[in-house]
């Protein structure tokens, strides 16, 4: 049984560019949450999707947006990238609002 799958694993972008990260949830999970984890910090909640709707949102600017598809997979989009957006982006899926199962993340480097 595949767990949570994230792609790509690593990504390098230039300031001002846009990026899309992808997440396939664990089988049977319908809720997807996204987190940003800076080096040496705990994960910071970005937003959560359920039934293709953004259900909750953390303290992140509108440059961060997302989408959930009918098959429960999800995308995280970040526009106008800043150097400070460099981080490990984690996706977690769950059958409810609980913390859930995490993927291995996408390491984004903005140069």
């Amino acid at each position, binding site marked *: 049984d595949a767990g*949570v799958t994230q792609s790509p694993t690593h990504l390098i972008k230039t300031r001002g560019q846009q990026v899309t990260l992808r997440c396939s949830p664990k089988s049977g999970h319908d809720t997807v*949450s996204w*987190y940003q984890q800076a080096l*040496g*910090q*705990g*994960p*910071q*909640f970005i937003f959560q999707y359920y039934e293709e709707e953004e259900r*909750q949102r*953390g303290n992140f600017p509108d440059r961060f947006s997302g989408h959930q598809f009918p098959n429960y997979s999800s995308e995280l989009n970040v526009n106008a990238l800043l150097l400070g957006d460099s981080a*490990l982006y*984690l996706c*977690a899926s769950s059958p409810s*609002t*609980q*913390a*859930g*199962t*995490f*993927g*291995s*993340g996408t*390491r984004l480097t903005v140069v």
Partner: protein
Amino acid sequence: EDQVTQSPEALRLQEGESSSLNCSYTVSGLRGLFWYRQDPGKGPEFLFTLYSAGEEKEKERLKATLTKKESFLHITAPKPEDSATYLCAVTSFNRDDKIIFGKGTRLHILP
């Protein structure tokens, strides 16, 4: 403001030397407290969920306990493979189940 504080930030132990990690929280209406293990460059791996004061959970050399203000992760006779960052997170009834993570404790077990 809801907050999760973990201590110590880092801990070095000899193999077999038992110790405890602390997670103190200030949230109104705790819904659940979670412990995760995170290896470098990987996503967090779920360990335990605790819901009410007095609850305890065990898994191999790890035991998690919960009081009204804090949780402890006790590590008994640790082995080098227990080296990782241990993350604590909480959800609150009053925050629409948004998950707040602490910064983690980096544990290093010396052989």
